């Protein structure tokens, strides 16, 4: 559930007592109409709060935690598990790591620590939401989230496929999986890794800790999933083209 407008306005008054709505919109890059609409509807999007908090050089995580519905985020957050960290590495970075560990004859450096490969791209990546849920899923997670939130499993799956997840569901998923609350917020792109309090080298360290077998199997899974997505899209484009050729 988005943040109640009343609590949001109270928060805004506390953190920026002298700023006008116009100032807030200018520094945070939010359209005035967007903010006005959210206030009128009585529901302010979490991303709005994060943008403003960021612009005011505050901690978005702490600000989010100051609202009742996100009170769980307060305090020292549980650090992300290695599986969660690896899930936030882009598929192409995983493949690069595979090559980088291979023999120089195949373009690799043969190094274990991948010290010479370029830095990992920041989260989120193109399939970060689904990969995150897969990383923390014990097989029953989706059912537990669905039971706890009342969101139908197929709606939940549709969000994952679209690489989206509402912050509320992201937190509910983390709660149901018993992991730290920041993982989902990073995977959905609401918070950056730094804002979530993840150490800057955490992802690289988790990647380096993977054995060659683990890394290769994981990269293979990702590649297979990507191939499936691409093939489905190609098939859909083919279908669409055929419709337009015959009926357009």
């Amino acid at each position, binding site marked *: 559930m988005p943040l109640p407008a009343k609590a949001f306005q109270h928060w805004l008054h506390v953190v920026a007592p002298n700023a006008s709505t116009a100032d807030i919109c200018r520094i945070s890059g939010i359209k005035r109409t967007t903010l006005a609409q959210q206030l009128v509807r009585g529901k302010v999007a979490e991303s709005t709060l994060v943008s403003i908090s960021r612009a005011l050089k505050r901690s978005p995580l702490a600000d989010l935690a100051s609202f009742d519905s996100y009170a769980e985020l307060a305090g020292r957050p549980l650090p992300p598990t290695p599986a969660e960290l690896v899930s936030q590495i882009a598929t192409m970075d995983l493949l690069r790591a595979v090559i980088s560990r291979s023999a120089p004859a195949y373009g690799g450096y043969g190094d274990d620590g991948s010290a010479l490969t370029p830095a990992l791209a920041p989260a989120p990546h193109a399939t970060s939401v689904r990969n995150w849920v897969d990383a923390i899923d014990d097989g029953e997670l989706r059912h537990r989230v669905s039971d706890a939130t009342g969101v139908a499993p197929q709606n939940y799956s549709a969000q994952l496929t679209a690489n989206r997840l509402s912050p509320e569901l992201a937190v509910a998923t983390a709660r149901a999986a018993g992991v730290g609350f920041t993982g989902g917020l990073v995977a959905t792109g609401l918070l950056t890794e730094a804002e979530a309090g993840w150490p800057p080298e955490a992802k690289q360290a988790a990647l380096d800790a993977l054995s060659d077998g683990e890394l290769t199997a994981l990269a293979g899974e990702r590649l297979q999933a990507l191939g499936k997505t691409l093939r489905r899209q190609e098939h859909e484009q083919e279908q669409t083209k055929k*419709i337009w050729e015959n009926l357009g």
Partner: protein
Amino acid sequence: MRATLEWATLLVCCAALLLRVPDAVRGRNRTVFGILFLGTLCSVLAVSELYELIDRALGGWDLTSLILRYLVFATVLLVGLRVTRGLAADRAHQLIAGGIGRWALGLGCLAVTLAFFLMDSYGSPEGLHAQAADGAGDADLAPWFTAAGRTYPAFVSLVLVAPLLAAVRSRLPRLVRAGALLVLLGAAFAVLSLPAALTPSSWAGAQHFVNYAAALGYVVGLVVFWFSGLIASPSGNARATLRRNRG
């Protein structure tokens, strides 16, 4: 109510036809233009005033109503072939283009022709209905003539329902699915119009609504298909291409 429906359908058909003129001149998808042309012709004959005008020119013995049925059959046949081809529904295409489809078309034509000559009556369809109300002559065959005229369209529409439903439920671009939904509605109404023809004449309003809703669904659906292709940019619908994963 009836006049409004008749003229509205004609107007929509004419608009759709005019929209497709530039493409037809360029030689692109002339079949769809042909479908819309036949559809417009049908809707011209479906307007009572225009019908009487044309029928008088043809001798005034209701031959026009028979011609109208044949035109509807031709339109529906073309729509069926094109839609099944476009949706890559090979089995449905085979049903319409193959032996079963030809038998259905032949029987449909035979049924309307037989019903028409059995009716052996003069005057416009309105006249027929008036006679039916009086209970005079063979006019109680009129609903059967109407029903016979809807058998083949109902058959084709029934075949189209499954592939259209699949297209609506697919993850194709939204406008394409909207077009499929409209054609699906048209098909559903076309199927319904067959039993509707045999309902008591006090239900005339509903009968006409079903009939014209079917025509409008098909025509507007085709326009939406065309429009979706028109505004589609080549880079559209690319959510997870390799380029995005290059990170």
